C-alpha cells in the first residue's frame, strides 16, 4: 500500500482553513449585522460570541478532518486494478479495473504547484468517474503512475485477447 506525500497535509490544511474562514466569516458577519443594525430588536448578548465560537469549532473540525484524511488515504497499483482507500467519516474502498480506464489525467492546481505536488485523475465510463483522483503525489510519481496506468490499461486488453 502506498501512502500520499506528507506535504499533501499542507494543501489540505490550507484549504480547510481557507474554507472555514469563508464560512466563519459569513457566520460572524451575519451575527454582527443582526445585533449591530438592530434588525433583530432584542438579540441575545451571546449571539456574536456564539457565532465566533461556532465558526472556530467548525474550523477546528475541518482541520482535524484534513489531518486525519492523510492517515486514511492509501492506494495500490494491483495486478488487475487500481485500489484506493479513503474517507474519514465514510470509509470508501474502490477498485478501478484497468480494463475500465478510459483516460488518465495528471493535473496541478496553483497550491499544488507551490507545494510541489500533483494529482492523477482516472476516468471510467461510470457515473462516479470523477471520483477517482489520487492527490498528493510528487510530479515524478504522478508522471510515472500515469504512464503505468496507461500501459496497464492497454495491456489488460491485450491479455484478454489471448
Amino acid at each position, binding site marked *: 500500500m502506498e501512502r500520499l506525500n506528507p506535504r499533501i497535509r499542507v494543501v489540505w490544511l490550507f484549504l480547510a482553513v481557507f474554507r472555514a474562514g469563508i464560512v466563519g466569516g459569513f457566520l460572524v458577519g451575519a451575527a454582527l449585522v443582526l445585533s449591530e443594525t438592530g434588525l433583530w430588536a432584542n438579540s441575545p448578548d451571546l449571539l456574536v460570541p456564539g457565532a465566533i465560537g461556532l465558526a472556530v469549532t467548525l474550523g477546528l473540525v475541518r482541520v482535524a478532518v484534513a489531518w486525519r484524511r492523510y492517515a486514511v488515504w492509501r492506494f495500490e497499483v494491483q495486478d*488487475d*486494478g487500481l485500489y484506493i482507500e479513503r*474517507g474519514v*467519516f*465514510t*470509509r*470508501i*474502498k*474502490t*477498485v*478501478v*479495473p484497468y*480494463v*475500465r480506464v*478510459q483516460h488518465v489525467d495528471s493535473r496541478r492546481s496553483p497550491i499544488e504547484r507551490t507545494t510541489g505536488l500533483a494529482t492523477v485523475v482516472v476516468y*471510467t*465510463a*461510470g*457515473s*462516479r468517474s470523477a471520483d*477517482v483522483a489520487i492527490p498528493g503525489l510528487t510530479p515524478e510519481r504522478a508522471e510515472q503512475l500515469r504512464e503505468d496506468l496507461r500501459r496497464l490499461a492497454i495491456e489488460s*486488453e491485450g*491479455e*484478454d*485477447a*489471448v
Partner: protein
Amino acid sequence: MNRLHPFSAAVYALRYGLLWLWVPFFLVTALAGAIEVVNIAWLPVAALLGFLSGAAYGIVYYYRFEYGITPDTFDVASGVIARRSREIPYRRIQNVDVRQGVLQRVLGLAVVTVETAGGGHSEAALQLVSKSEADRLQHQIRRRTAGVDADDPDRPTSEASEDSRPLDHEPLDKQSSRVDGTAEASPASETRSRREPTEPSRKRLFALDSRELLLYSLTTLRPAALAAVGFLFFFATDTVLDFLVTLSQPFGGPQDLQTGDTQSYGVLTVVSMVNGIVITYLVSVAYTFATYYDFRLGRVDEDFVYERGLLQRYSGSIPAEKVQSVTITDNPLQRLIDYAGLWVETAGYGPDSSGGSQSAVPMARAAHVHRFAENLTHVETPAFASPPPIARRRYLVRYSLIAAGVVAAALALAQVTPLERWYLAAVVFVAVPPAAHLRYVNLGYYVGEDHLVIRRGFWRRRTTVIPYFRIQTVSTRRSIFQRRLGIASLVVDTASSRTLFWDTPTIYDVDLEDARGAHRTGRKRLQSALRERARTDDASFSVDFT
C-alpha cells in the same frame, strides 16, 4: 450528403426569426433612452429587420446542414459561420430514436436523434426529416451497426441468437394475435423491398394491451405531474383559487377567500389538498396513458426496437450489445396486483431524459416480466440474501431521528405561530417501525454465476441485474455507524447509472464479510468474464466499454 426535409427551412426560419426579433427590439429600447438619435418609433421596423435576418439565417442554416451515411460513419455537417462536421462511427452508436409530435405526425415529419455514450446530450439531431426518411435512417444505421459487429464475430452475435430463441417463445399466443403486421411494417417493408431483400423481419417480443396500459397508467404516479399542476396554478392562480373555494362550499368552506372563520378555512385547506392530489393523479394517469399508448417492442437482428405514444410518437432502437443492465420496477400497488415493469439501460440518453433507461416492458404480469428478464440476461432465478437484522435496527434509529426532526420543526413552528398542540406531531413516530421494516424486507442481493442482482426500495422497488462484465468500478463504503455495527454497503457502478432519479446500484448494509466477498467476486468475475468473452470473440476483443 442529404439535406433535411424542405419544411425544416420554414421551421428554422421561423425559430431564428422569432429569436432574432428581440435583439434590435431591446437594442432600440435601450438606446432610445440613452442617445437622442435613436427614436423609439423605429421599433417596428427594427423588429421586422431582426425577424427577416433571423429568417434568412434559418434558411441558410437549412442549406448548410447536411448529413449522410458512409460505409463506416454517420456524418453530420452543420453551422452557418462556424462549421462543424461530425463523424460518428457506427460501433459507437448507442441508440437511434425517432420522435414525432402531433403536428409532425399530421405532416408526416419526424425528428431523428442519434445517441452515443459520450457527452451530455444527443450526438446528432436531425430536425426535421420525412417519416419515411427517418425510418430509412434508423433502419440503415441499425443495419450498419450490426454489420460492424458481424465483421469481427462479436460475442453478442452468438449470445443474442441464443436468446432470441427463448424470447421468441415468450410472446404468448395472445400477443401474436395482437400483432398487426401490416400496419407497423408498411414504411419498413417499403424500404426493405427497395433496398435489400434479405432484411430480416422484425420479431414481436411484447405489445402492451389495453388492459395493461390502463393498469400501468392507474398504478404509476409521476412526479412530473406535480410540476404540471404547479405550473397551471402559477399561471391561473385566481381562477384556480375560485374553483377550489367553490368546490369546498358544499362541505362547509368559506363564501370567498376573505370571509371565513377558522373552521371553514380548515375545510377549504383539506378539500383543496384532496383536490390537488386527485388532479395531480389524473394528470399523471393521462400523461402515462398518452406516453405509453400502443407500446410495442420488437427485435430486428441484434436490436430491440420499440414504439409508443398517443399524440407524440416515439420509436427507437437499442442494440442488444449495448445493454448495460436490466431493471425490474414495481411499486406497492403493482405488487398488490402482481404486475411489474422492465427497463433496459444503455450508456446513451433516452427520449424520456431519464438517462439511458428505456422501458422495454412498461407493465406485464410479474412472472412474465421475470421470465423476460431471465431470457434477456440469461440470469438464473436469483435466491436473494438479506442484510443482517442489525440493518433494520439502523433504519429504526435513522427514521426515529427524522421523526424527532419533524417534532422539533413543529415545536419551532409553535414558537412563531399561534400553533398549539405541536406535540401531536409525535404521531409520525407510529410510522417509524413499519417504515424501517419495509425498507429492510425489500432489500436483497444475489451474487450469481454471471450476474449480480440487487433489489432495493419500497415505494419504487428496483431489482437490477448487472452482468459482471458490465461493472465499471466496485466500492465498499462504511460510514462511522456502519463501522460500529460491522456492516458495509457495496456500490457497483456501471456505465448506465448516470441517471438523475435512479441511484447507483448499491447493496446496502450487509455484513462486512459478505460485502468483501461480493466485492472480491465482482472484481474477479469481471476479469474472467471479459476473458471468456474475448475467447469466444476469436481473439478480436473489441475495445468498446459499452
